[in-house]
Structures are given as C-alpha cells and as structure tokens.
C-alpha cells in the first residue's frame, strides 16, 4: 500500500495536482517554525544572558546559612557550584564612608558569564572568569567615586583592610530596584571571617549558585523546592532583567499572532485544495475499488499519500521557516547584543507537527471520504453535491489546530474565541449577502456567473469569508500594528527616566532637584519611601509559608510603601477606586494575591514597630516594563505622612548631568544612583525592531492569503471551463464572456473587501476602545485598504480564471 501510495504521489506531484496543498502546507509550517524558532532562540539567548547576570543557572538564596544537603544535591547531580554571601555594610577609605553592598564570593564564582574589571572608572575593562583574589576587592565605579579611591589604594571593610584591585562594571539588576541597592563591593569569601562582619545574628543573604546541563539543573531545582524552608527562595534566569524579558515576550506574541493568521489561511487554502483534489480523484478511487480494493484500503492509500506528502511539504516548510527565522533574527540579533544559541528540537517538532496536524484537520476529511465513493462512479460520473457535514468536521478539527497554536503562542482562549467569532460572523454575513445577491435579476452569461457564486453557498462562503479573513488579517496588521507598537513605545517615552536616586533624605530632595534642573534635567520626580512589613489581613496574622519561594519571600520581606496624591499614569485600577482623601492602601494586583488580600480587607503593615491598619481600597496593574518608579503599595497621604521616610528620585539625565554625576555623588554621599540607560536603550530597540519583524512574518500571512485565493479560484475550475465552453457553443461572444468573468471576480472582490472593511472597522473600534488607542492614520485608511484588497482579490481572480475562458470549447466540453 505504501508503494502504491508513493507511486501515485510521485505521479500527482509531477502532474502538479498537489501544488496548492503543498504551497499552503509549506507556508503554514514555515510561519509556525519561524516564529517558534525565534521564540526558542531568543528565550535561550535571554536565559544565557540572564544566567550571566545571575552568574549561574539557578541561585538558592537564604537568610540563614544553607545546610550542606543543598550543596550535596548539586554535587550528586554533577553540577558546578559556588557560594556567595552578601549584605550591606559601611566601607571606609581615607576618612570617607559609604554604604556598600558587600558580595563575598568563593573561587568558583561566577559559574556563568564574566565580571568586567577595569583599572580606571571610565575604562570598559576586561572580562574575568573568577572573583577578586584573596586580600583584594573590586568596587563598583560609583562606590570608588564616592570613596575617592583608585586602583592600588586600600579600603576598610569591617576589621580588614583590603586592596582595591579594579573596578567591576556590573549590570543593573532589575529586581533589585525596589530594594534600595547600594553600590557593590566584591571580595573573596576566604577574607570574610577576618572582617568580623558576619555573626550568627547578622542579616546576611547566603547564596548557593549552581550551573550545569539543563536537565540536571531542573532536577536539582525540584529537589531544592521540596526542601525549601521559610526565608529561602530559588532564583532563575526569569528573575533577572524582567523589563527586557517582558519586551521580548510581547514581541514574540505579536509575531505569533501574525503566524496564527498565516496558519489559519494556510489551513483554509489546504481545505479548499484538498476538497478539489478529492473530487478530481473520485474516479481513481472508484477504479481502485473496482480492482478489488477494500474501502479502508482506498482511504488508506489516499491518507498515506497525504502523510508522505505532508512530510515532504513539512520539510520544505521547515527549511523556509529556518530562512525566515534567520532573517527575523538578523533584525533582532545586532540589537539584542547577545549570542543566540542554536534552537532545541521543540520548534522543529512543533512546525512539522502543526503541518501534519493541519493537513489532517483541513485536508484529510475529503480524502478519507474517497473510501466511500460508489464503484459506479467508474461507469458514470455521479454528480457531487456539496455536503454540510465536512464543513462541521473541518471546523472542529481546524478549531483544535488553531487552539493548540494559539495556546502555545500564549494567546489565551479569549483571543481564540474572538478569532472564531470573527470567522463565524464573516461566514454568516457572506451567507446573507449571497442570499441577497441571488435575488438580483441576471441574464445570459452573467446569470451563469452569478449562479456559480450564489448557488454553491457552502463553498462560496468558505471562499469569500476566507478571503475576507485574509484581507482582514493583513489590513488589521497593517493599520493597527503601527498604532499598537506606537502605544507600546509610548510606555517608554523619550523622557522616560534613565537614572534612579535612592536613599535621599527629605531635606535633600529640593536641593537635588534644583541641582538637576540646573544641569538641564527637566521634571525629575520624587517619591517618599517608607519601609513596612505586611503583618495581618483582617486581623489574621500572615504566615510566611506556602505559595512557593517567591510568594513566601514577598510576604516576609519589608516592602517599600509610598504615598501619593495621584496614581502614576501607567497604573490601571482593576478593582475598587482610588481617592487620596480616603485612608487606605492601593495594592499591585499580584502582590495582593500573594498577601491573600482584596478590596475591602483590612491590611496591617508594621512600620518602624507601629502597626498601621487601613482598608485595601483598590487593586492596580502596573506596567513594570516602563522602568518608571513603581510600587507594590501606595497609600493615601494621610496614612503615612507622619512616618520618617527616605526619598527616591527618577530623572532622564542630560549629557551634562551625566558628566556631573560623580560630583553629585560627592555632594550627596548617602545617595545611591542606579543607571538603567543601557537597559532602556535595549528595550526601546527591541520595540522598534519587533515592528519590522512582524512585517516580515506578515508577508507569510499575505502569501497564505494569496494561496487561499488561488485555491478558491481553482476550486470550480473544471466546471467553470465547461460553463464557458458551453456559453461559447451557444453563441456567446468573447467580450461577453470576459465581461461576465470580470463581473464574477468583481463580485467576489467586492464581497471580500466589503466584509473585511466592515469587520475591520468593528475590530479596529473595539481594540482602540479597549486599549485606549488613538486613531493616528487618516480616516480613509481602512476604506482604501479594503478597496485595494478587494481589487487585488479581483485581479488575482481574473489572472487565475482567465485561462478558463474557453479557447477550444469543443475539447473542453467533450474532453477530446
């Protein structure tokens, strides 16, 4: 049977009958593979980058010394490991003192990435794959500036005097922003006991860093998780650099949506082409049955044919997908500035799997039905009537395929339901329009053309709504994409702060603001910060246990509370209401979940030993990727004003202010400055390039829409040829036939364009209202796009169908 299937397949391939199914399949597979490959490689690149930022694949963090069992678990699994201890402490040099974040690391540190160590503050430095040698320290440049030391000089850490060996240029840790991070000092773990800074009562963080093969890392993480105690948490790559991760996640989701449209259109094209193919092969199927093949055998031959064919087309799709992915990454690669590791097997399997699944869902039902072809078809062609059943089967299977991809791509059931809703609405509207069109008076050649459209409603609905959906996808992407990306980019406006100033005293706020303004910095913002530990919800004490490491960590950690008159612009209330005059807390929604608190609950924070209880008045969503100052907890001013606070400032520095930074640090010695400009540039660049990347994937969508068009016009080719030939025999002249065909393709183009326009305007309005997007393009954008789309449909239809204008009518009619 395989041999027969292969033989027939080869013949069909040469005859070109499978071309359209192949094209649709290749495009669908390519779109999925390309997007999955980009997602996979970028995720791997990010993990590697984040691991370099962490210095490990996983870090186990604890506020008490870690038992050796954790280390043994890592050793048993064959992982490399390193130990580190960190804590804040004052560092002294030449009579100056500054708070530093001390990190004491052993010889194995770092396990991933390198530390760049420079000899001057301005120098880029060279990469070192280990920590500072015993007896020496590496300082973060701003600490060196604050202390006024250079390489070779000495600093005092606790009881020890250590030599400055270089300046470590470390990247900012996104997650550390809210914690009030002092500039860092790296020292050898061996030197730590002598400093006398660490006693059993000290508040230090003990870290165990591990690295190794992913499977072993995952296994060890699981073992750790089982033994996790309160006060411990496991950090992975996702905990590092959330801003960039969010930007890339969002970017790949845009890509996935474009690919989803390509898959959907590819599927439609496959369905049309397969049904045509099945109809063309009814005689062959009947002949096989005539020769004694059982029904299952006939169905088996065609199914196998499809499977073999799917594999061939799938491999082609994978190759094309790789090419597209390479182009996409060329756009992203340079700016990500990171090495992108080779992909794993998953994207390939996903692409091929989606291709085969798509074929099975869209193309198999009509081929499977060939097993049921009556043997008498050999003797006399039995006219095939369109049946409703296969449409239902297609819809179910196609829904499953699209659902699988949508979920994999991170688009929730809502997005998918929306897509299905749009498709159904288009189909319904097409059906109604066809009914109305069918009532139009028509004569002669035009009557034949119109009847061809309106009296095969099943297939015409698929054709027209498929084309309309294609146009809709293309137009939506073209029109909405710009504004969506623009809105996204607006979350990072050109004046987004790129420097944060922490640990300001209330008295320093005005002078620092004046100093910054004098340096040309416009509108620096300042927020009070008050440390508070959540202790009770509705009088019930909070327990530290449960909910995993991070949740427990957040519950027992002191949070930075602030009070404000107005909520930050990019915060969105999801429940309750905000009023600065009503005493209460506004919580970030995720934080509220961790605390188990909701609107109306009485929440108590311990602030400087005093319990402060107030109702939760609202929950907020916070756009963390904006890199603006954001808070888990915002209080109404009356609630917190009386407590002592430090202040946090945020500003976009002018080049002048940037140069004056060392002087500012000297003037405000307690100040901690965090520079996020590099990260900001990176995130903004990702946003820009995602626009281009989406456009590239969108060409695949466009390609798929064109294949739908070809499949649709090809669908009734034989019948159309026969109709045209008959009309010519009956005396119709060339001009009349051409006119009829133009009208026919014109009607289909108008229907598809009109439906795409109506649905597009509705979708556009809905998305803009839901996301608060402003209309930036001209009002005629949509109508013009739809008209152009309709015209393209009609022109493509003409070019596909004009070959059917009978040249040799007798041959077309009699088959001779």
């Amino acid at each position, binding site marked *: 049977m395989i041999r027969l299937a292969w033989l027939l397949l080869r013949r069909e391939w040469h005859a070109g009958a499978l071309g359209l199914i192949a094209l649709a399949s290749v495009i669908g597979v390519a779109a999925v593979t390309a997007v999955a490959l980009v997602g996979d490689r970028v995720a791997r690149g990010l993990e590697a980058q984040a691991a370099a930022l962490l210095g490990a694949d996983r870090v186990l963090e604890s506020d008490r010394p870690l038992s050796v069992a954790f280390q043994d678990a890592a050793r048993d699994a064959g992982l490399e490991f390193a130990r580190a201890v960190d804590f804040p402490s004052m560092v002294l040099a030449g009579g100056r003192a500054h708070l530093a974040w001390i990190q004491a690391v052993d010889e194995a540190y770092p396990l991933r990435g390198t530390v760049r160590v420079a000899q001057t503050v301005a120098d880029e430095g060279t990469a070192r794959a280990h920590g500072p040698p015993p007896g020496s320290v590496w300082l973060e440049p701003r600490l060196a500036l604050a202390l006024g030391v250079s390489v070779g000089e000495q600093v005092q850490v606790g009881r020890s005097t250590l030599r400055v060996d270089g300046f470590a240029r470390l990247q900012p840790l996104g997650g550390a922003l809210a914690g009030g991070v002092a500039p860092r000092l790296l020292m050898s773990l061996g030197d730590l006991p002598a400093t006398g800074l660490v006693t059993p009562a000290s508040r230090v963080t003990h870290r165990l860093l591990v690295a190794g093969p992913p499977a072993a890392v995952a296994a060890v993480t699981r073992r750790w998780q089982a033994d996790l105690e309160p006060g411990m948490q496991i950090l992975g790559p996702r905990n590092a650099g959330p801003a960039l991760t969010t930007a890339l996640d969002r970017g790949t989701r845009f890509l996935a949506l474009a690919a989803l449209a390509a898959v959907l259109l590819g599927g439609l094209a496959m369905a049309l082409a397969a049904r045509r193919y099945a109809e063309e092969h009814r005689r062959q199927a009947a002949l096989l049955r005539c020769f004694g093949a059982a029904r299952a055998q006939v169905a088996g031959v065609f199914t196998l044919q499809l499977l073999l064919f799917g594999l061939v087309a799938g491999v082609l799709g994978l190759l094309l997908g790789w090419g597209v992915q390479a182009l996409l990454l060329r756009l992203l690669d340079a700016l990500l500035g990171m090495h992108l590791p080779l992909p794993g097997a998953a994207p390939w399997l996903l692409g091929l799997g989606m291709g085969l699944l798509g074929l099975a869902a869209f193309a198999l039902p009509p081929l499977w039905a060939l097993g049921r072809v009556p043997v008498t078809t050999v003797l006399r062609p039995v006219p095939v009537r369109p049946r409703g059943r296969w449409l239902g089967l297609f819809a179910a299977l196609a829904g499953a395929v699209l659902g699988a991809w949508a979920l994999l791509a991170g688009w929730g059931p809502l997005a998918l339901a929306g897509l299905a809703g749009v498709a159904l609405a288009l189909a319904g509207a097409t059906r109604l329009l066809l009914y109305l069109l069918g009532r139009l008076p028509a004569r002669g050649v035009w009557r034949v053309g119109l009847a061809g459209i309106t009296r095969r409603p099943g297939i015409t609905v698929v054709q027209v709504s498929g084309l309309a959906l294609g146009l809709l996808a293309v137009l939506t992407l073209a029109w909405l994409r710009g504004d969506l990306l623009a809105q996204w980019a607006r979350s990072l406006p050109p004046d987004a702060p790129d420097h944060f100033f922490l640990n300001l005293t209330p008295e320093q706020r005005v002078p620092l603001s004046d100093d910054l303004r004098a340096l040309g910095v416009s509108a620096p913002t300042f927020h009070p910060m008050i440390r508070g530990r959540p202790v009770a919800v509705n009088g019930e004490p909070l327990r530290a246990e449960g909910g995993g490491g991070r949740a427990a960590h957040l519950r027992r950690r002191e949070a930075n509370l602030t009070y404000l008159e107005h909520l930050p612009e990019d915060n969105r209330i999801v429940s309750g209401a905000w009023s600065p005059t009503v005493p209460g807390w506004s919580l970030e929604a995720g934080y509220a979940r961790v605390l188990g608190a909701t609107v109306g609950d009485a929440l108590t924070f311990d602030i400087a030993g005093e319990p402060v209880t107030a109702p939760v008045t609202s929950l907020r969503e916070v756009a963390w990727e904006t890199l603006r100052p954001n808070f888990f907890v915002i209080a109404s001013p009356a609630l917190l004003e009386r407590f002592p606070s430090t202040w946090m400032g945020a500003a976009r520095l002018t080049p002048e202010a940037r140069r004056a930074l060392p002087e500012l640090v000297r003037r405000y010695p307690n100040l901690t400055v965090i520079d996020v400009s590099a990260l900001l540039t990176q995130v903004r660049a990702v946003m820009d390039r995602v626009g281009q990347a989406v456009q590239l994937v969108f060409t695949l969508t466009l390609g798929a829409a064109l294949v739908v068009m070809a499949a649709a016009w090809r669908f009734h080719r034989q019948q159309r040829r026969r109709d045209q030939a008959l009309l*010519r025999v009956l005396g119709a002249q060339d001009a009349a036939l051409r006119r009829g065909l133009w009208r026919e393709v014109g009607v289909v183009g108008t229907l598809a364009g009109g439906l795409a326009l109506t649905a597009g305007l509705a979708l556009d309005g809905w998305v803009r209202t839901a996301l608060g997007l402003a209309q930036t393009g001209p009002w005629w954008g949509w109508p013009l796009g739809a008209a152009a789309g309709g015209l393209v449909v009609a022109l493509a239809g003409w070019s596909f169908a004009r070959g059917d204008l009978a040249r040799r009518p007798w041959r077309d*009619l009699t088959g001779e």
Partner: protein
Amino acid sequence: MTEPVLAVEGLSHWVDAPGGRLTLLREVELSIRAGETMALLGPSGAGKSTLLALLAGLDRPRAGRVWVVGRELTALDEDERARLRGETMGFVFQSFQLIPTLTALENVMLPLEVIGRTGAGDTARAVLERVGLGARLNHYPAQLSGGEQQRVAIARAFAPRPRLLLADEPTGNLDRVNGERVMDQLFALNAEAGTTLVLVTHDPVLAARCQRRLRLEDGRLEAA
C-alpha cells in the same frame, strides 16, 4: 432548388502529433438541404466529433471551406462565428452539458438570452412543457434523471428555433428505453420545426431513422 443549409468543400484537418502528422479528415465534401436529417456513422476515432466541431465553427479546419445558411463560416472571425452559431444552430451532447447551478428553465432560457432574444422565459417554459417537463421547471440538473436531463438539453437546443441541429451521440449516456423516448421527442420536434439535423451516432437503429446516412472511415466520408 433550395440553397443547402450546410455545405462543405474540400475539408481537411490534421494535428501535429509526436509521431508526425495525424490526419483526421481528408477532402470531405458534403451538402445538406433544409429539413433534411442525416446520420453520421463511424468507428471510434474516425473523426466524427472533429467534423461536428468544424461544422459548428468551434474549430478552424486546416483546409477547405464550410457554409452555413449561405454564409462562409470558415471566413468569419471567432465572434462572428459565435453569433452565427447562436442564431442558427442548436446542440445536443452525449453528456447533456447542462449548467449545474441553473434550473431546468434557466438552462433552456440561456441560449435565448445569450443572443438577446426577448421573451426567453415564456419560450423556454413552452418548450419544456412540450418535452413533458412542465412540472420540473425549477429543478436543478442534479435533481433530474439522465433521461430528463437530456430532454432539458433537447429543449434548450430547440428553444431558439435553430435551422441546423447538431447532435453528438445523444443517447450515449442513456439506457435503451430512455434513449428511445428521448429520440422520439427529438425527431418529433425536428419534424415540427423543419430543422436540419446532423446526428452523430454509433447506433444503426437510430441512424436508420434519418433520411440519409454517411459513414466516416479513415477521415473520408462515404455513403453508408
């Protein structure tokens, strides 16, 4: 003597095949008077359908001339041939060739509308009633039996009152009983309208009902 409805002079046709020239018709001469019925017999591949296509102006012969109702068909361009065909000829095919998306009535109206005749609906309805399908006007071809479909095709052929009817194996797809019934109607309508009939067939019984019988053998036309 009346002018022949159809006249053929020195008609030859060949195609260039991979093995060299394949001659289908050789120096065919033919003349048919108005109202005459003629059967064209011959084995498969003898060129019967090719001759029919050339007589209808659906293809151009390599050599020779064809006149229909006094106009030289072979001198006309494609559109002029189409107009002449629409105004003077009717066709009946072996596989009916009804348009599946049109009802029986619409199929019969079609040739009238193509040549711009008025009252197509009334004419078509009358002819369909004449062939016994008055109750099937709004049925689609797929809802009709083979015999009924061919009767629709015959109604369509006669509706514009053609002067020349070309029928290509009209009973080829029908069983004997249905075939006979359909042919009875065809001959009856033909007699009523005084149409000239050229009937291509394998069936000697059917051929016997025509006034004249010719045989096409090896591209040459001879009396049967």
